[in-house]
């Protein structure tokens, strides 16, 4: 992966920012414990989000029961891929944010659009200090707006790029899941249809993304609130003729 420093020292060793830290100090260069893709899409009742429960330590699939989707306030879900400790820090910021929002006790509460906007500011400002939070965040939710219940789904990544869409995927999902979502997503899918579509994407990622594991969590956010379902596994199929008797055509001892 292109996270390591290029060996030829072609760019001056990372970002030695003299100003805030003092000369010769460095900031976050590469992530250590990372989560892989998150997929999300809008459906009839709200937004559905899914990811696996794994966190890798480089090429080791080190942690296998990690929850990478969390509820934020009453109206939103956040899913993250990338450095898990940065996600934990972001959750702490969001906790402070939702607490002070709650204490106003004025009948209003932060909706998904507001939370997404807040996160965008945080991510972009950190990037400008050369000290990014190494994540791709997916923010989905439902909140009453001027036109009734409005579904919202957006993402923001470590360099501050952010946008809103009907379906989002991070990491490998960008390459493997987005084409499927573009072809098969439609407006107002039922929950069952949405789950089927999400599972189709998750299965492709399971087969092709080496950092994914066969343990997934689906979460949904509707006007009733957030529900994060318990983890479960998908059935995989390995009974291909080419896999049977793998050493059949092998020559010699190798």
């Amino acid at each position, binding site marked *: 992966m292109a996270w390591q420093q290029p060996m030829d020292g072609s760019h001056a060793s990372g970002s030695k920012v003299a100003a805030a830290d003092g000369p010769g100090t460095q900031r976050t260069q590469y992530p250590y414990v990372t989560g892989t893709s998150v997929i999300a899409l809008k459906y009839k009742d709200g937004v559905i989000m899914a990811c696996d429960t794994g966190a890798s330590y480089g090429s080791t699939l080190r942690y296998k029961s990690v929850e990478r989707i969390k509820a934020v306030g009453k109206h939103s879900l956040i899913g993250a891929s990338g450095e898990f400790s940065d996600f934990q820090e972001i959750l702490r910021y969001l906790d402070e944010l939702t*607490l002070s929002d709650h204490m106003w006790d004025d009948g209003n509460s932060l909706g998904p659009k507001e939370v997404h906007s807040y996160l965008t500011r945080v991510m972009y400002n950190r990037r400008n200090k050369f000290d990014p939070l190494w994540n791709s965040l997916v923010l989905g939710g439902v909140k009453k707006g001027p036109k009734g219940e409005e579904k919202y789904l957006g993402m923001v990544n470590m360099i501050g790029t952010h946008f809103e869409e009907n379906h989002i995927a991070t990491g490998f999902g960008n390459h493997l899941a987005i084409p499927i979502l573009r072809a098969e997503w439609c407006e107002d899918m039922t929950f069952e249809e949405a789950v089927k579509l999400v599972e189709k994407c998750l299965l492709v990622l399971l087969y092709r993304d080496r950092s994914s594991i066969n343990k997934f969590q689906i979460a949904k956010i509707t006007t009733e609130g957030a529900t994060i379902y318990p983890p479960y596994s998908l059935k995989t199929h390995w009974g291909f003729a080419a896999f049977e008797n793998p050493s059949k055509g092998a020559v010699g001892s190798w």
Partner: protein
Amino acid sequence: MSSIGTGYDLSVTTFSPDGRVFQVEYAGKAVDNSGTVVGIKCKDGIVLGVEKLVTSKMILKGSNRRVHSVHRNTGLAVAGLAADGRQIVARAKSEAANYEKVYGEPMPVKELADRVASYVHLCTLYWWLRPFGCGVILGGYDRDGPQLYMIEPSGLSYKYFGAALGKGRQAAKTEIEKLKLSELTCREGIVEVAKIIYGVHDEAKDKAFELELSWVCDESNRQHEKVPDDLVEQAKAAAQAALEEMDAD
């Protein structure tokens, strides 16, 4: 009854010959002249109630909050100068948020009461600051159960079963003492607090008032929140009925 502190009351850093700090006592007078604030500790939580005197017909109902949440599980009711109260609330919120950030768990009520008391006391130590013109009743629910503290402008802080501040505090305290708090649930407690506040409200001197009730109890999931409207209405109705009964005698 009130002694004039001639000469010894000009600064908060001056003692009188009989060992009193008059400026702090005068700050207490600001609290004594405000609308009544009542707090009680029931067996399953805390109830806080405020008699919000409405000074003008133009004021929107529900504005001018006197009971504030300072954390998920703790509330603060303010008596006295409202603007001074806001400073104390802001400080309490900041202390509670900081504690949770450092220690990873909600701030224990005892600790928060201590910090608030220290802060209030701080402003009685320097001549360039004036004491807060408000007293607060702090109620919260943590691992040690529900707890109620009252902090006075002097910085004095005690833990209470029941506490009252403001105009009707004497009458309110008498009423609270009659209650069997250890057997009362918060649902029943709300009604009792409403009755007390309606009871001590002086119809002659102050016309209109709004009742603000909040609680933190098992029923509210140990979260501090405004008492749900339907329960407030029930409590008000019961309080008014009790008043009429008293008048009928």
